[in-house]
């Protein structure tokens, strides 16, 4: 896998792929020490991303085979950018906040409970989740509703594998993701910005689409906390906020669930929120996007693709007015 790294970046995230584990681990420890030193010395401001390094220092490698039929040709975003520019309000509203504050998130032990319209509710721990299906690496485009995009090498498997195991009843028409909301671990929860816990949802056929990824890692490692550790979904043809992070509950429902951003502003954030260059957000155009870390300073923004370029999913919406169901 090719990742462009700017010469000024000292961390080499993909070293895991070419370096023996012990050497790799010691290098990580060294970086962690450096970062810790920077923090202790009050040098945080200068290092800036010290915590992001600290985060990755504890990251475990996660083995997965690249599934080339789910790998876009776009150049993956630099690890540094993908782990320091995050919308994760539970850890603060500034995009640089989660990398600094998500260290308090405890991802082990972790369980996900499967509830609602299923034959028999049950819970899965992280180990069971990881072993449920073979892990694949998939390189997906990620388009944020704010008008920027990244390309991320995720690790996981199709959510459909979990749905199969959950064995939903015929009544299950929708799936809801309920995410962690714990004030002790998440400083952002003291702001009533959204209704916590953050919830998201999909129609069953969307959830069962092979592109919908139950995600446990990225860049060859388990998910960094600020990216939704330890388990999240990734729905690459929808705006990023649909891809719920740090999931603790998956509910199968008869009715369309209420979702976090939709509850805040239904006019701005629809339930479907498919990437669509023809349907503007009320406050900005969705026709173009800025690719993080790649498009030069003075480069024109690139054209946003229908369904973020994932035309396979068009069949899910046959006959639907996507301007109405945005």
């Amino acid at each position, binding site marked *: 896998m090719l990742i462009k790294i700017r010469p000024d970046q000292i961390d080499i995230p993909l070293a895991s792929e070419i370096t023996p584990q012990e050497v790799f681990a010691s290098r990580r420890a060294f970086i962690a020490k450096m970062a810790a030193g920077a923090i202790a010395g009050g040098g945080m401001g200068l290092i800036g991303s010290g915590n992001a390094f600290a985060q990755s220092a504890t990251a475990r490698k996660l083995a997965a085979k690249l599934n080339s039929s789910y790998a876009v040709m776009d150049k993956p975003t630099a690890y540094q950018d993908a782990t*320091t520019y995050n919308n994760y309000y539970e850890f603060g509203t500034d*995009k640089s906040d989660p990398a600094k504050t998500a260290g308090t998130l405890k991802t082990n032990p972790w369980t996900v409970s499967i509830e609602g319209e299923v034959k028999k509710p049950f819970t899965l721990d992280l180990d069971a989740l990881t072993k449920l299906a073979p892990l694949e690496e998939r390189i997906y485009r990620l388009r944020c509703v704010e008008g920027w995009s990244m390309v991320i090498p995720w690790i996981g498997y199709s959510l459909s594998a979990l749905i199969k195991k959950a064995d939903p009843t015929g009544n299950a028409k929708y799936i809801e993701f309920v995410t962690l909301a714990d004030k002790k671990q998440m400083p952002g929860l003291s702001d009533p*910005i959204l209704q916590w816990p953050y919830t998201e949802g999909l129609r069953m056929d969307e959830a069962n689409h092979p592109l919908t990824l139950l995600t446990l890692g990225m860049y060859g490692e388990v998910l960094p906390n600020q990216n939704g550790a330890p388990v999240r979904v990734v729905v690459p043809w929808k705006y990023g906020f649909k891809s719920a992070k740090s999931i603790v509950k998956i509910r199968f429902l008869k009715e369309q669930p209420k979702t976090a951003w939709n509850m805040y502003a239904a006019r701005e954030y629809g339930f479907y929120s498919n990437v669509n260059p023809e349907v503007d957000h009320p406050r900005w155009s969705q026709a173009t996007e800025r690719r993080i870390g790649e498009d030069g*300073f003075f480069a024109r923004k690139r054209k946003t693709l229908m369904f973020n370029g994932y035309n396979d999913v068009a069949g899910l919406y046959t006959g639907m007015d996507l301007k109405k169901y945005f």
Partner: protein
Amino acid sequence: MSALNRLNALKNLSTRQVLYLRNVLFVLALLPLARLVLFVFLDRLGANPIEFITRNTGDWALYFLTITLAVTPLRRLTGWNWLVRLRRMLGLYAFFYVFLHFTIFFWLDHFFDFQEMWKDIVKRPFITVGMLAFALLIPLAITSTNAMVRRLGGKRWQWLHRLTYVIVPLGVLHFWWVKAGKNLLAQPILFTTIVAALLLMRILSQKNRQQLAQLFSRRDAGAGAGTDLVKESK
């Protein structure tokens, strides 16, 4: 020396002292821009540099607009009349940062595509009010020179520059709408409160205004009143 005495001592600064202060302020007001330029070279603007610059110049535009609006109330409270001699420069810096903010929008966001930009301005209220505030600032910047004050005459000049009372609230509204989309209203509420207080202080100082009215009628009778008004009015 007691605190009150010290405060009173600051009432009468010599022209040289005021000029010195103004020079210091001139350099200080350039620091936000210098920081941005430095960050470009140090690659410290984060993952989305253009967003960073857009927000940062917008923030500083709002800071300078608010500071400019604070000059007169502050002068009244402290009796430091020389403060007004810093006001033009502060106002011009507000214009400068608004101009940078606009330039980023027009250049790096729309690549000088006037049609696209116009579509955005008409369609999106937060851009409409931002652009309106910018447009209203232009005549104020143009008429900021001593020569223009003389040409307009003090009274007309002052009426024109009362546009500030519209421009700053428009800027705050623009900021509010930008932040409201993500439900981040703490800062917009803070700026609304400050600006509302600064405007309210003007309304409430009825007595002062009456005194000023007398002052103006005296001044207008004299020759070359305009230049003085830049320094002394409001």
